[in-house]
């Protein structure tokens, strides 16, 4: 029986989470490596298969194309964990708290006094032209003035070993159920390691989520619902999972009804009031009377009930103004402006095509840059210059010239790698990191995250819709490494 070994593992060219450049094991992975080296390759592979089966059995599946029952897939979970030292985590958590606090102050300012625009910290046109800016939200003050209660910031670790913010997700970030269920599965895969390593637990996330939602309404006991687009939505598993774990109702738009500006669920004994809605339906679709008229996912009158303060919507509509990729570039300045602090988690250098000089640079250097749509997500609508053909670059240049406001560009960053099980061996694959912040009375970040991994060799795109998988993320106790 041949044992697992890392003697041929290649770390050249990238920051590796497990090994240093001189091929020494990093302290956070020491015990893990010892354990794996005692295991036969066959056993490791069997553990991976058991994981695939566990995911199917739990129903952790997503529909690739809407309405098509046949195409149901699992998000591949690679069993080799991504381990983060306690020290690294402390730094990350502080930086995230700072960022989320500042971004919420920014959103509240934009929809109210707009001091930040008057003080010329950020161009007015840039903010007001953002697809996430909703004029209907002007003058609103959600409870505690928090707009983005649940956020999932995408971070990466660069060649220098430092963490950078790649993008902010302030609307309906998904994936937290994978953070929680991946952990449940890995606890069965490597039970003894959890004990020895002092991996910090994440399973109280849904308790904190419920507490946060309850903290937004004076009604007690609060009636809480999770609003889902339905079973064909790619994140339906998560919606159902969170509702179940919190003991909240899982509702679709057609289960709700608005009467006299109050929101009710249609039940077998009549109409029942709803106080807080964790909605997983995009802003555009929540209310056909105010936004997209053709939406069948929302409930007519919901927005008016929200404006009147009779129901809390989480996250608040309009929060997306702050995760526009063009506004991202200004966040370090916004942190300084609102908190009078230096940014703890740096941004990646960003060129705004909306600005003439930047745009010129971008068009001249397309082949070295990554270009993204400012309101895009899911890895769609982007160009990875160094990996694209001349024709693709040319086509993209045309799109940028047509609508420069819609694009930003960043230098190509080499995402760090983590050893990953491939068909016949273990190789480094690129990863990002998405921790989740809850913001109600205060900011709460559970010590864990979703690590997304680009399964295709050399690929830098980690999105599940584009061949990405996931890993369990272990945050270690500060004392134990």
């Amino acid at each position: 029986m041949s044992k697992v070994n890392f003697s041929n593992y290649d770390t050249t060219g990238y920051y590796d989470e497990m090994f240093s450049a001189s091929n020494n094991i990093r302290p956070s992975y020491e015990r893990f490596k010892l354990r794996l080296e005692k295991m036969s390759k066959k056993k490791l592979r069997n553990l991976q298969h058991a994981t695939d089966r566990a995911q199917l059995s739990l129903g952790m599946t997503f529909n690739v194309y809407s309405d098509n029952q046949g195409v149901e897939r699992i998000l591949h979970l690679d069993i080799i964990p991504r381990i983060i030292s306690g020290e690294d985590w402390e730094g990350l958590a502080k930086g995230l708290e700072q960022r989320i606090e500042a971004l919420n102050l920014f959103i509240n300012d934009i929809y109210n006094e707009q001091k930040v625009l008057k003080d010329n910290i950020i161009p007015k046109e840039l903010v007001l032209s953002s697809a996430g800016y909703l004029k209907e939200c002007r003058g609103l003050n959600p409870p505690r003035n928090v707009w983005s209660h649940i956020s999932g910031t995408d971070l990466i670790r660069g060649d220098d070993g430092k963490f950078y913010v790649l993008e902010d997700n302030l609307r309906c970030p998904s994936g937290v159920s994978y953070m929680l269920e991946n952990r449940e599965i890995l606890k069965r895969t490597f039970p003894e390691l959890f004990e020895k390593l002092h991996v910090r637990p994440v399973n109280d996330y849904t308790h904190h989520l419920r507490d946060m939602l309850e903290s937004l309404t004076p009604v007690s006991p609060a009636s809480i619902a999770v609003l889902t687009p339905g079973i064909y939505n790619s994140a339906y598993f998560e919606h159902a999972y969170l509702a179940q774990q919190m003991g909240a109702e899982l509702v679709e738009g057609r289960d709700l009804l608005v009467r006299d500006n109050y929101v009710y669920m249609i039940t077998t004994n009549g109409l029942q009031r709803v106080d807080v809605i964790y909605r997983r339906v995009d802003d555009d679709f929540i209310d056909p009377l105010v936004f997209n008229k053709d939406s069948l996912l929302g409930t007519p009158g919901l927005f008016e009930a929200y404006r009147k303060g009779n129901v809390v919507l989480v996250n608040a509509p309009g929060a997306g103004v702050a995760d526009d990729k063009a506004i991202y570039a200004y966040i370090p300045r916004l942190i300084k402006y609102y908190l009078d602090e230096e940014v703890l988690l740096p941004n990646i250098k960003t060129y705004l095509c909306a600005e003439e000089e930047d745009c010129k640079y971008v068009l001249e250097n397309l082949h070295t840059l990554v270009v993204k749509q400012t309101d895009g997500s899911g890895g769609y609508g982007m160009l990875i210059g160094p990996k694209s053909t001349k024709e693709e670059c040319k086509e993209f240049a045309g799109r940028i010239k047509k609508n420069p406001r819609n694009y930003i560009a960043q230098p190509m960053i080499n995402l760090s790698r983590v050893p990953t099980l491939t068909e016949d061996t273990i190789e480094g694959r690129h990863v990002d990191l998405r921790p989740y912040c809850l913001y109600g009375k205060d900011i709460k970040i559970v010590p864990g995250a979703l690590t997304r991994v680009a399964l295709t060799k050399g690929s830098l795109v980690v999105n599940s819709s584009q061949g990405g998988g996931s890993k369990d993320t272990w945050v270690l106790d500060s004392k134990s490494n």
Partner: protein
Amino acid sequence: MLSRVANSMYWMNRYIERAENYARFMDVNFNLSLESPPDTQEQWKPLVVITGDWPLYQSLYNTVDKNKIIYFLGFDPKNPNSIYSSISMARENARAIRPEITREVWEQINSMYFYVRASLGKKLWKSKDPRMFFKKIKEDCQLLYGIFDATISRSDGWHFGKIGQMIERADKTSRVMDVKYHILLSTPQDVGGSLDLMQWAALLKSVSAYDMYRKKYGRLTALKISEFLILDKRFPRSILCCLIQAEQSLKEITGNTAGFSNEAEKKLGKLKSELEFIDINEIVEIGLHEYLDGYQKQLNAVSTSLYNSFFVAQVQLQVQQ
């Protein structure tokens, strides 16, 4: 509970009960076919007739043969009531109400779905002996009943599920009787006359009633078998017993103790009372087929009134205090 959720709970349980009944019908029929003379392909057709999908079968297939019928009832995605379709639909409903059921219930339904899907892929209906498929479906469904009862609180959801299960069961027991009656006897007067013992024994086995019947009556007679399957108060698959259980669950939901508080309660209560206060000789006088036909119409009306009383949005607009 949400009207949509109640509806899904009801249907999830109906579909599972349907799948189990189909599996049992086919298992028994397959056994029977092994001992029958070679020219009795005909005995597969009644199976399709029971289900009410004979017209659909005829529109899809030109010939009647054992393999086609096993495919049609067990695996055919084009048949909305096949075991494959029933379990897929049960899973769709379970997915839609995932937070209302336990992880154990979900995992069981989900694993059944993967099993029927794999069986469809493996073309199990072509195998020499598809009984392992029927057996597995029966066992899986029965395991699910156990998990459902052992892990779900007796709140409205459980009761809506129970009603769905009991109505489906009452429907299937009556259909299996009615169709056997068609084959065995040509006129109502013949009930109690000469009969093919093997066929009647098979009928009892089709609804898992053979052992309990033998214990109670010993001898197989058409009259006693009919009485047992329609009017027995203690056998869990008899029509009356199913209606009693459905009514109990409905009363738990409405909290009503006497009379009725909505259309569903009224229709179900009346139907149950009718069976409670009739004896088998009166049924024979009316004619078994005629009686069952009338009963089935009333059972369908119960199902419709459940929908109108609980599952549709428009009637639920009273604000709860």
